[in-house]
């Protein structure tokens, strides 16, 4: 289920990219490159442009101007290679769906409009649920699950895509400590597989664990390796408050145990 990918880098290349809605630019002059096995974390306040950038990378929003290539193409042309976990899932409490039905939707991109879901597809669904620790919730209805359990099911759906690029918008919302650990392991496994990940998060520690960190405040405050760009000054510019690095548990940890670029070597 986790065969190495055969894609060539770079996965994402953004040059002088301006993003926004219609004529309104939210963030301008974005420049970065993301390769295989790499992860990029976006941090910033609400409304800072994180979700707008993610939607642009996925192809849901056109770039206002500038150059953006995902797998060497316009992002709208490669949606099938991208898995996207959006911040808001609609109708979670109305839809009569079982957890397994939600995860199975992750295989629709491969199966197409009427293609039969194969035994392999079912195996991928099962494995994805197992990886997120929701296999026992398989036949439970979505509306009977807690918000944290629902979030794990949504992440399992994203995994079932077996995509080359994972775009995750605040994926740890509602997750407890154990689920966050499962999620972190999943991220490491996906990077080992050769996938690339872009994640919007409010967790500075999670952002520091990524290969690259971008601080957004309706402009790019900084982008680069976390230990270099996540400074008290940059955090002040990003969040408008002073955050003391490494002194408050759960806010920031500068020291990292794993290598950024070779998560599979650990």
């Amino acid at each position: 289920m986790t065969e190495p990918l055969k894609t060539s880098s770079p996965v994402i290349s953004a040059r002088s990219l301006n993003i926004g809605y219609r004529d309104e630019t939210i963030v301008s002059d974005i420049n970065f490159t993301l390769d295989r096995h790499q992860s990029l974390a976006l941090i910033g306040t609400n409304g800072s442009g994180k979700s707008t950038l993610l939607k642009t990378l996925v192809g849901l929003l056109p770039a206002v101007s500038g150059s953006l290539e995902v797998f060497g193409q316009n992002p709208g042309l490669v949606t099938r290679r991208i898995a996207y976990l959006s911040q808001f899932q609609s109708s979670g409490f109305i839809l009569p769906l079982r957890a397994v039905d939600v995860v199975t939707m992750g295989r629709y991109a491969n199966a197409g409009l009427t293609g039969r879901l194969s035994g392999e597809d079912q195996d991928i669904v099962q494995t994805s649920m197992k990886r997120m620790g929701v296999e026992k919730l398989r036949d439970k209805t979505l509306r009977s699950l807690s918000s944290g359990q629902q979030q794990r099911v949504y992440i399992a759906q994203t995994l079932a895509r077996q995509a080359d690029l994972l775009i995750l918008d605040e994926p740890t919302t509602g997750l407890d400590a154990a689920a966050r650990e499962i999620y972190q392991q999943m991220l490491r496994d996906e990077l080992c597989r050769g996938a690339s990940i872009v994640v919007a998060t409010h967790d500075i520690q999670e952002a520091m664990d990524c290969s690259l960190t971008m601080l957004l405040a309706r402009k790019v405050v900084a982008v680069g390796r976390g230990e270099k760009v996540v400074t008290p000054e940059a955090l002040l510019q990003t969040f408008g408050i002073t955050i003391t690095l490494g002194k408050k548990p759960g806010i920031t940890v500068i020291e990292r145990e794993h290598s950024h670029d070779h998560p599979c070597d650990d």
Partner: protein
Amino acid sequence: MSWLIEPFASNAFMLRALIAGALVSIVCGVVGTYIVLRGLAFIGDALAHGVLPGVAVAILLGIPGIIGAAVSAVVMIGGISVITRKSNLSSDTAIGLLFISMLALGVIIVSRSTSFSGDLVRILFGEILGINTQSVILQAIATVVILITVAICERPFLLLCFNPEQAQISGFSSRLYHNIMLAMIALAVVISFQTVGTMLVFGMLIAPAGAAALLARRIRTMMVYSSLFGLVSVFSGLLISYFFNFSAGSTIVLVASLIFFAVLLFKTIQNSRQKQKAVISHD
């Protein structure tokens, strides 16, 4: 028990009404499921009422009302699409604008003609007992078209219900399939208005599907429950109207609404009992 069968066995118009009502139940059960799950009730309501001017003009011109209804539905869907694309207004506002415009136009057309008194009642409340074989055949064809569409588009429709962005990312154009869904709703309205009328077709789209949503664990099951609730409404509504001389279309929709409230009451009692059990076992 012969009173259950006799009205349909000895009256051809009752049998045709039952068949037409059964087809409406299936169509509204399936389409209503998506209306309820996607929160499209307002557009369903607007379409149900917005077909009035088309039907009125069709009657004035002496052509089948179903053609006028179809033209009205196309105008409404097109108008809603144009307004939402050309402005920053929400689709609700666009639907509301088209809804009141079309309804007002329909009332003006009807009020300008003296020959409409009986027809207006027929348009608003249907003529299930007067439906002819040709209309039943037309309904059957439309039912098959809708069922085939749902079978083919099941995946994008499901993704649209879940999250339209996921539909887009999965390679299904959310705009295209949303429009197909709207066209399906319009077709359901157009073929159902003759049976239960423009005022009541909305009830058949919402009430059985709403009741089914409270019980079902899967979308296909919801469609089956919804259709069954519709069938029960049609069968019992026709019988009640036959024996008590009530308006058939209105009785059918009232029964459908009563089924919804009965299911709601059942679920409320069931949930409170489950909560009580949970509290007792916790203690």
